[in-house]
């Protein structure tokens, strides 16, 4: 029971200190989980992180489930994950509540019009960063462009593209197109 509680607290701390997720989380996990508590080694952490990236879902959540289940089995996995999302729940709910009551003020509207432009640029930067890691040959280039064009012009659920592309990945690898 005690250790479950500690898991929750440790991952809630990770949640609070992670700004933006992804790679920003690694140094914080190193400090909280490896150095301070010795719950996993640096190598294990990198393994979890790598698998967290190649399984569906939010990477931070996946890593939390891994470490939690290693310590205390299924209950540990669930508690650690609830810990990592707990700060988000509190903070976002507060902000959303406040913003809803201020959103009709002209200055707030103008601020968000400016912010939207920034979001545009941030998404563009995220796309170019991911592009370098994912579009490595002709087949992936074609897949990426096809998905982009089809999802801009047609009303298809992203889940459909995900399933088809996983199949295409296996098919291309088997056919020996990969890497050309």
């Amino acid at each position, binding site marked *: 029971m005690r250790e479950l509680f500690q898991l929750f607290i440790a991952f809630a701390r990770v*949640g*609070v*200190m*992670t*700004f933006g997720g*992804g790679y920003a989380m690694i140094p914080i996990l190193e400090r909280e989980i490896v150095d301070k508590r010795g719950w996993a080694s640096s190598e294990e952490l990198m*393994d979890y992180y790598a*698998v967290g*990236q190649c*399984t*569906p*879902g*939010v*990477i*931070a*959540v*996946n890593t939390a*489930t891994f470490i939690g*289940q290693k310590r205390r089995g299924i209950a540990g*996995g*669930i508690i650690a994950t609830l810990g990592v*999302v707990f700060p*988000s*729940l509190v*903070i*976002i*709910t507060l902000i*959303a509540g406040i913003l809803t009551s201020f959103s009709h003020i002209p200055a707030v509207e*103008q*601020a968000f*019009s*400016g912010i*939207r*432009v*920034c*979001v*545009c*640029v941030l*998404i563009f930067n*995220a796309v170019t960063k*991911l592009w370098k*890691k*994912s579009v490595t040959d002709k087949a*992936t280039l074609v*897949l*990426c462009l096809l*998905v*982009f064009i089809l*999802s801009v012009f047609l009303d298809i*659920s*992203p*889940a459909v593209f*995900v*399933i088809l*592309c*996983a199949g*295409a*990945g*296996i098919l*291309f690898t088997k056919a020996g197109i990969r890497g050309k």
Partner: protein
Amino acid sequence: MIYLRLFYEFFKAGLFAVGGGMATLPFLYDISDSTGWFTHSQLADMVAVSESTPGPIGVNMATYVGYTTGGIPGAVIATLGIIAPSIIIILLIAKVLKAFRQNKYVDAAFYGLRPCSVGLIAAAGFLVLKLALFNTELYQSTGVLADLFNIKAIILAAALLVVTRYVNKLRNVHPIFFIAASAVVGIVFAF
């Protein structure tokens, strides 16, 4: 039953969004289109808030959308929905971690999934672009081509692009600073 639908939609996003935070974005646009719970411009605002607050972006966006749709219970349910598939999948593969990582089918599937994720995020970004830099509605009503472009926004976008990508000192600065600066520009220049 809105809560059941919320859980289902976010479970789906958690299950199919591959590649971290931004990968949930296309699913959120899909939810917006199919349910009408929130608008595209609300969603862009939620992205900004999720980027500038602590916590993983994917989780923050789920909580925000959930709150907007169904208050505090909605926030909790959407968040649980997006983490449920992760918990199930990770608990299943934790025992066979090494085998999973080295499995050639998993590797081959991800070879196809990664570019797919990039394409989907780019398409979601395109929707934000249309909203932030162009006045499509104004153009449709006036028919004047100059009305289509939101000049102030385009200048800001170009400036941000240069600053975030090509100015070495600023490239690794946290996005929250650019978001804050853009908010100030938005107010000062009356966007």
